[in-house]
């Protein structure tokens, strides 16, 4: 028997399955009689649907059903409301929320919006019929830019929402910030765009719906990150059936990063189609469709201002943002450019005053919802860019200016001016460790070596401080089998992060049982009564603590059984290393023996029944945690071509207690890669006039490839434990997206500082870098 503890880099349970081709992703599932659905999507950014002539398509071979907005209206299905944590405008009135149906009812408002569903015996038949479907559109003017959408005279998306205005938002001390700006020695201001990107999980979205006419129950197998919340939407809001009638399962999910969080329209459409056809209905997005219809993220235009004293001490930070969210509020769309980006403004720096305000606009684009970080990467980037800009324009050393303004441990705990509860951390220490790791002593020689080749070299360091998010509650259930098996059921959801390993690791360590005995169940509304799914780096913080809580409830029950078996007082029983021990007599009994006894009435104390160790518990977070750290990058820039190479990258992260360093490394590396993608390569671009998506394939939207990345060096700081949760974890999933973009972009600016370049908008493509150099000269 192998025992594994918390903190060990256990190899993953799930890998055998994935490495041998035995993973079960949504498109790997087939059912008897299964038929195929294809979504017909709007080719226009904004158009009235005048008529859909479905008869000839219906007559094509194999076609079973065509669903249009007219059908949807006739059936009386409900809309999908936003669950944004920010629901009100500054004046206290509710945000403007247009009705979001599973498909466009009479007007399409973005290229790719579902307009009809075609169901046929085979996928090819459905594709052919979808192409033949005759839809008469009346094109309208479109607006894709959120600033233009809010301007007078812009095309109007919704009759009853004037000015395409969703909401405005503010946080912080407006007057105090204004006063600090008024009395500061220096004020710098910079317009910063946070480029619109999309998650691109390598598995596209897809689902299979089945319906049983006898029980009137639905089954939805869905490549989703959040079965419980989305069941509530599909059952309660759309189909108007009790939640129990919809069994929602997520099989193996091939990446998500936020893009699979939402309740999309397509699963609702195929649930209906399954009932209408009496057949299981499969729908799988093509990659091109995913670019059109997956949620996008970031996409914020901000003016960021920093007030400083003569000696470089920060006085105040003020950010004003405009964010577009597409034509609907989607699931939590309004939150990211409002509360999401506001909370972590200012990062780990000591700002006496801060103020954040934003306006959120509807546009004729794909919906916006969370993408890895959902506001925190934007806040981190805005903060770090304005600090860097201040250093360059006012003549401070960028490293020193940061170092001198970090919050110090003696300032903690504290509430930031944005209301964030910072309980723990040692920002200067993490900063210094990052600097030490990055071989500053050898830097000058590396700059010289680059210069020999005609290449500029630059360095930047980017401390960040973010926070967790997502559902505050999580369920963990543990069932013991008579055959020695242990089943752990949790309502959070892995889309690749390795919960099948990290969660049993916690349980096995706490109970002192063999890790390999634990079978893990997730992503199933019938397996857990509640579940918060995936998002906000919440799994270990909320789910992991639920597992810990379940384990502690089990050992408490175990103590009673052990006391009974050892003829001891329950109070004298201690549990450690998988054994219950009477501290007075020295007698002990192993956890395995207690588990065995728990099935036998004769060996149990009164009031305990066989199977009594089975446990289900709900853990609720009281307050979100504060992951933080420091990233640094060294880049080479070729001034002749504008090409940027990230040569070296360092990260020191404070995620609290590290449960499995192997998996934590994976989170950092993957997050940094996505951060590098946003910084250098990725951008969603719509044509301003037509509203067509110009980056609608992997040939146009550049993802980082293996040779775009350097070998990263990663370390953890575990000496500032948090008491916000019993495991002492802070969350790891989104740090890379907060740290990497500012480190990389500021390193490029450092490299080009001698050329006079002060700012380049992401992504830093060779063309933009080259143009920046050319215009600075």
């Amino acid at each position, binding site marked *: 028997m192998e025992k594994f503890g918390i903190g060990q880099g256990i190899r993953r349970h799930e890998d055998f399955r994935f490495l041998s081709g035995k993973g079960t992703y949504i498109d790997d599932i087939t059912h008897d009689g299964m038929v195929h659905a294809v979504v017909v999507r709007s080719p226009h950014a904004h158009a009235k649907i005048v008529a859909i002539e479905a008869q000839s398509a219906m007559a094509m071979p194999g076609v079973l059903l065509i669903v249009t907005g007219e059908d949807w209206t006739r059936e009386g299905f409900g809309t999908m409301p936003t669950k944004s944590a920010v629901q009100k405008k500054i004046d206290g009135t509710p945000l403007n929320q247009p009705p979001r149906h599973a498909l466009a009812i009479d007007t399409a408002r973005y290229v790719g919006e579902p307009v009809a569903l075609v169901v046929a015996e085979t996928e090819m038949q459905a594709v052919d019929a979808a192409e033949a479907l005759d839809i008469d559109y009346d094109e309208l003017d479109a607006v894709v830019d959120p600033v233009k959408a809010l301007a007078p005279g812009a095309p109007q998306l919704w009759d009853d929402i004037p000015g395409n205005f969703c909401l405005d938002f503010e946080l912080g001390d407006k007057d105090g910030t204004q006063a600090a700006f008024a009395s500061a020695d220096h004020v710098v201001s910079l317009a910063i765009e946070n480029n619109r990107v999309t998650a691109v999980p390598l598995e596209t979205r897809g689902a299979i719906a089945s319906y049983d006419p006898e029980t009137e129950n639905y089954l939805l197998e869905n490549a989703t990150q959040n079965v419980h919340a989305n069941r509530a939407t599909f059952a309660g809001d759309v189909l108007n059936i009790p939640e129990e009638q919809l069994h929602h399962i997520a099989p193996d999910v091939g990446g998500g990063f936020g893009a699979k969080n939402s309740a999309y329209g397509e699963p609702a459409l195929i649930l209906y189609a399954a009932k209408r056809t009496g057949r299981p209905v499969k729908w799988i997005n093509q990659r091109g469709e995913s670019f059109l219809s997956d949620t996008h993220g970031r996409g914020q235009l901000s003016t960021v201002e920093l007030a400083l004293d003569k000696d470089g001490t920060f006085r105040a930070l003020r950010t004003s943002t405009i964010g577009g969210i597409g034509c609907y509020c989607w699931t939590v769309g309004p939150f990211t450019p409002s509360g999401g980006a506001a909370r972590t403004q200012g990062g780990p720096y000591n700002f006496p005053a801060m103020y954040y305000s934003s306006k959120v606009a509807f546009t004729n684009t794909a919906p916006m919802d969370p993408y890895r970080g959902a506001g925190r990467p934007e806040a981190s980037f805005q903060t770090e860019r304005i600090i860097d800009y201040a250093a360059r324009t006012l003549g401070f050393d960028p490293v020193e200016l940061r170092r001198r303004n970090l919050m110090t441990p003696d300032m903690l705990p504290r509430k930031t001016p944005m209301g964030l509860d910072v309980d723990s951390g040692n920002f200067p220490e993490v900063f210094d460790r990052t600097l030490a790791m990055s071989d500053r002593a050898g830097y000058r020689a590396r700059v010289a070596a680059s210069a020999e080749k005609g290449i500029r070299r630059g360095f930047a360091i980017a401390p960040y401080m973010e926070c967790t998010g997502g559902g505050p509650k999580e369920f963990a259930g543990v069932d013991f089998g008579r055959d020695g098996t242990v089943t752990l059921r949790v309502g959070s959801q892995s889309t690749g992060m390795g919960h099948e390993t990290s969660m049993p690791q916690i349980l096995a360590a706490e109970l002192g049982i063999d890790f390999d005995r634990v079978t893990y169940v997730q992503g199933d509304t019938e397996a857990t009564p509640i579940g918060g799914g995936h998002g906000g780096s919440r799994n270990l913080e909320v789910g992991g603590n639920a597992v810990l809580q379940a384990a502690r409830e089990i050992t408490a029950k175990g103590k009673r059984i052990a006391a009974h078996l050892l003829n001891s007082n329950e109070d004298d029983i201690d549990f450690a290393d998988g054994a219950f021990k009477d501290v007075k007599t020295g007698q002990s009994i192993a956890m395995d023996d207690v588990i065995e006894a728990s099935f036998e009435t004769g060996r149990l104390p009164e009031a305990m029944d066989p199977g009594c160790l089975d446990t289900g518990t709900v853990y609720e977070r009281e307050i979100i945690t504060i992951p933080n750290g420091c990233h640094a990058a060294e880049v080479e820039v070729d001034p002749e071509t504008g090409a940027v190479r990230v040569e070296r990258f360092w990260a020191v992260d404070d995620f609290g207690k590290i449960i499995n360093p192997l998996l934590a490394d994976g989170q950092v*590396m993957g997050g940094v890669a996505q951060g590098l993608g946003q910084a250098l390569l990725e951008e969603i671009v719509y044509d301003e006039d037509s509203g067509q998506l110009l980056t609608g394939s992997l040939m146009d939207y550049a993802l980082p490839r*293996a040779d775009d990345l350097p070998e990263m060096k990663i370390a953890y700081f575990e000496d500032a434990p948090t008491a916000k949760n019993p495991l002492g974890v802070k969350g790891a999933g989104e740090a890379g997206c907060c740290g990497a973009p500012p480190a990389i972009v500021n390193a490029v600016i450092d490299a080009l500082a001698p050329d006079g370049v002060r700012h380049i908008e992401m992504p830093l493509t060779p063309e933009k870098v080259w143009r920046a150099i050319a215009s600075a000269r």
Partner: protein
Amino acid sequence: MPTISLTVNGKPVSAEADTRQLLSVFLREQLGLTGTHIGCDTSQCGVCVIHVDGKAVKSCTMLALQADGADVTTIEGLASEGEMHPMQEAFRDHHALQCGFCTPGMVMMSVVLARDNPDLDDDAIRHGLEGNLCRCTGYQNIIHAVRAGAKAMKG
């Protein structure tokens, strides 16, 4: 529909193939070999890489009909007698996969890279894997795994 005959994972198979069916779809739907994934529609992502007559091929770049008479190996055929291939072992050991969706293509590509160049350095691995996208790992652990897998394959 025409029928094609080929060898898949060491076994002769015959099956009907639609004239416009891609090899990737044929393997998944006609033969039930769902370990070969489909991640894009432009042959960019590499999750469908298999071996055709010993070469690493994106199976979405071939029609099924073009594989008539070919010797095909998919991820399901890589392990032998229940023993994982050294490259599969190396991927697990180095945490070179997260969601697992790119993994079959990544492993199949890596096996050919290592076979054709037993002394792969990191640059050669990164260059060799340019046609295989991974959105989870940041590639670093994949590079480490391929380095170790190549060494193990050399024996």
